[in-house]
């Protein structure tokens, strides 16, 4: 009971946090780029846009930060046996994340928000880049920790503890770099899709030329960003799939619900009926799974039954198969949302090229709906990679069931309920505030002031 509740709690607090993380990373980059364009080109439009989207960025950041605090302690709260087992290795990137990334983003965000009048424009620009670098470094170190759970390297096991033997190997883990690139470009696509959706909608309904022109430029720019970013997401995802085929073949098989090893395996777009191997209806693309897994037309993809037998032989009798409906559908939700985003980006780039970006009513609707696509893809991708590793918490070394704390089910259940309640309220408030910020008029640009002419007292921001 404690185990199931602990799984639910971890899933809820992680996925909720991960709604905001890619948005924050992506918007951070977008706002920093806009502010850079404003300074380099001396262009008021970009300055206005950076302030406008900066407001939404701060809402996302605030919720991301407070829900991130919970995760720093989640392993100790609910997964203490896991923590003892992996602390030597898993703890190090977590601590380094705090020292290198959290300090950077949290300190410089204060300077960015409050320092507009106190810092020179160049220095003020540098602060948002520091924040952005901080958020990206944070992704790097937490993914280093996660990559080790997916594909442990640079360790030995001594006295029931995994002991670090090669920190370079942990940071050089192939799984880490593939997922780092995948996550960061996905984050940029997430921020980009939000900027695109809001910009195109604002440009469409703008009553004055200044606003229309500003948002049209914002939208045109982000169409390209989204398109390029999502293509890179696909490429890096493909690299991940090939690593997964070697490192976690069971996860690959579970992504497809492929029961038996096949050469030239096909890929199913969707399945109606159950995933037991006898579907009522399926749409399949021949050979695609082999191409994804192995880059070859007739490459072999291991099946669930064969992997189950192989892992039972290696680790002892037991169930080594993930929850298939979850892995199968989360994988499809992720890839499907990604494909739709490529289409959206390509449509936008084509419209922009034809100088008709703002005119198309259908594109406005699609772009607004498109804000949700990367959010769905991010959550599904995270659920897929974590659920696909089950029953392992550290692949091949420790099962999730063995990692849980000895706390009462009542404590875990009660706190989980409280997290659900508080996070639901946060979600509603964040959504309301983002919608409100999206309606905010573009700022008039203040006279640029150097530090010499800074007002004597700091401005009130909050």
């Amino acid at each position, binding site marked *: 009971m404690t185990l199931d509740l602990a799984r639910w709690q971890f899933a809820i607090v992680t996925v909720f946090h991960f709604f905001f993380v890619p948005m924050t990373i992506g918007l951070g980059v977008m706002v920093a780029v806009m502010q850079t364009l404003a300074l380099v080109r001396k262009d008021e439009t970009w300055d206005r846009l950076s302030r406008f989207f900066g407001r939404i960025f*701060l*809402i996302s950041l*605030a*919720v991301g*930060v*407070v*829900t991130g*605090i*919970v995760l*720093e*302690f989640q*392993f*100790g*709260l609910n997964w*203490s046996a896991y*923590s*003892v*087992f*992996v*602390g*030597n*290795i*898993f*703890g190090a990137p*977590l*601590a*380094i*994340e*705090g*020292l*290198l990334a*959290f*300090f*950077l983003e949290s300190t*410089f965000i*204060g*300077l960015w*928000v*409050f*320092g507009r009048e*106190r810092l020179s424009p160049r220095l003020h620009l540098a602060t948002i880049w520091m924040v952005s670098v901080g958020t990206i470094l944070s992704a790097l170190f937490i993914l280093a920790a996660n990559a080790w759970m997916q594909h442990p390297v640079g360790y030995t096991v001594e*006295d029931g503890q995994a*002991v*670090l033997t090669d920190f370079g190997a942990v940071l050089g883990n192939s799984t880490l770099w593939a997922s780092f690139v995948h996550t960061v470009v996905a984050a940029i696509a997430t921020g980009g899709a939000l900027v695109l959706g809001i910009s195109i909608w604002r440009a469409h309904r703008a009553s004055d030329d200044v606003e229309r022109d500003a948002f049209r430029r914002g939208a045109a720019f982000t169409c390209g960003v989204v398109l390029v970013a999502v293509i890179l997401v696909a490429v890096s995802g493909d690299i991940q799939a090939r690593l997964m085929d070697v490192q976690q073949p069971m996860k690959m098989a579970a992504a497809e619900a492929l029961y038996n090893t096949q050469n030239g395996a096909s890929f199913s777009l969707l399945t109606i009926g159950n995933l037991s191997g006898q579907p009522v209806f399926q749409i399949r693309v021949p050979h695609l799974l082999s191409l994804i897994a192995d880059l070859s037309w007739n490459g072999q993809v291991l099946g669930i039954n064969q992997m189950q037998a192989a892992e039972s032989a290696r680790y002892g009798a037991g169930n080594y198969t993930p929850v298939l409906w979850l892995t199968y559908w989360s994988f499809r939700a992720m890839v499907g949302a990604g494909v739709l985003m490529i289409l959206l980006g390509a449509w936008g780039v084509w419209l922009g090229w034809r100088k008709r970006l703002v005119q198309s009513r259908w594109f406005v609707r699609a772009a607004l709906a498109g804000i949700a696509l990367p959010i769905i893809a991010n959550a599904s991708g995270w659920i897929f990679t974590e659920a696909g590793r089950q029953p392992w918490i550290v692949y091949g070394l420790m099962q999730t069931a063995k990692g849980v*704390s*000895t*706390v009462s089910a009542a*404590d875990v259940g009660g*706190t989980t309920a*409280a997290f659900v309640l*508080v996070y639901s309220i*946060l979600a509603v*408030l964040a959504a309301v*505030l983002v919608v409100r910020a999206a309606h905010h008029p573009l700022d008039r640009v203040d006279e640029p002031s150097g530090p010499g002419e800074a007002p*004597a*007292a*700091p401005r*009130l*921001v*909050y």
Partner: protein
Amino acid sequence: MATLTGLSALWFALIGLLWAGYFFLEGFDFGVGMVSPLVSRDDTDRRLCMNAVGPVWDGNEVWLLVAGGATFAAFPLWYASLFSGAYLALFLVLMALIVRGVSFEFRGKFQDRRWRRVWDVANFAGSLVAALVWGVAFTNFAHGLPLSRAGYTGGLFGLLNPLALVGGLAAVCIFAFHGSVFLALKTSGELRQRARRTARTAGLAAVVLLAATLVGVAAGGRPWAGVSGALPGVTPLLMAVVAAVLLAAAVLLIVRSREGLAFVATGAAILLAVGAVWSLMYPMAIPASSGAVVPGVPGITIGLAASHPYTLTVMTIVAGIFTPIVLLYQGWTYWVFRRRLVRPLDVPAPVQATGGH
């Protein structure tokens, strides 16, 4: 792995420094949150309070996250036993930090009075609960926890014993004192005067409660005093007494309008109080008031909890390189925002305020 090495002792000390830094910095954030309703007369005053810590509170809170992460990396068993053992207490702190954290960003988003009231309460209650629970926790560390083979299993109410509650109130008053001195240092006009008056009251309460906690902890004894490596009792005692004396001195200083010096004194008192708890605990990560996890050892020693020397060496190198850089830019932030806040000229004294964005 069960031996006490120089590296594990170093990391025990570093984690103590992280906590001390955390309480020094977020201590005044909590304090400002707690005294804001006492010193504010209108919406502008409350905004001034929030803006006084506005540029820095988020960076201050990272000290906690790094303390948590460093404990995980350097002493996995400590991290695991402490946070699963003190499950509901830590949960309370996390909830408090969540509602408090978003209150900064959310409060100004609507002009509505009820909306702002909600976030004022969130900021106040979040600061109060976090300060109280941290005080309770650190008093329990100093006194030792009843342990069994499974670690600490006494639940939340086992932590809320009378002595720990006195310690919790001491932390509330120390932070309220530290925070109102900070406000007096960062604001001007009537708000500054009111902050100074509140500081005086909070300071006197802090001295009394810290002294009471000190007596209670000393009376409880130290079952782990005989463990090899334990420091002589006079070390923590001296630190705690000096902390109390510094708090008393800070009361006198604030009465004489020496706000800068008073802030140095409250800050030093907080550092010393954490130092006292840490030197009292050493060489225990989790000291036992009764019972044991490992038979015959009164608590979980840092030697038992420590990571392998290789991990500690890697961490030492990373911390050695990056900590000075962090201190430098965090210090620079305080320099950039060193000026006092003034009441905006377009807002007359006690009147419904404008503003927010």
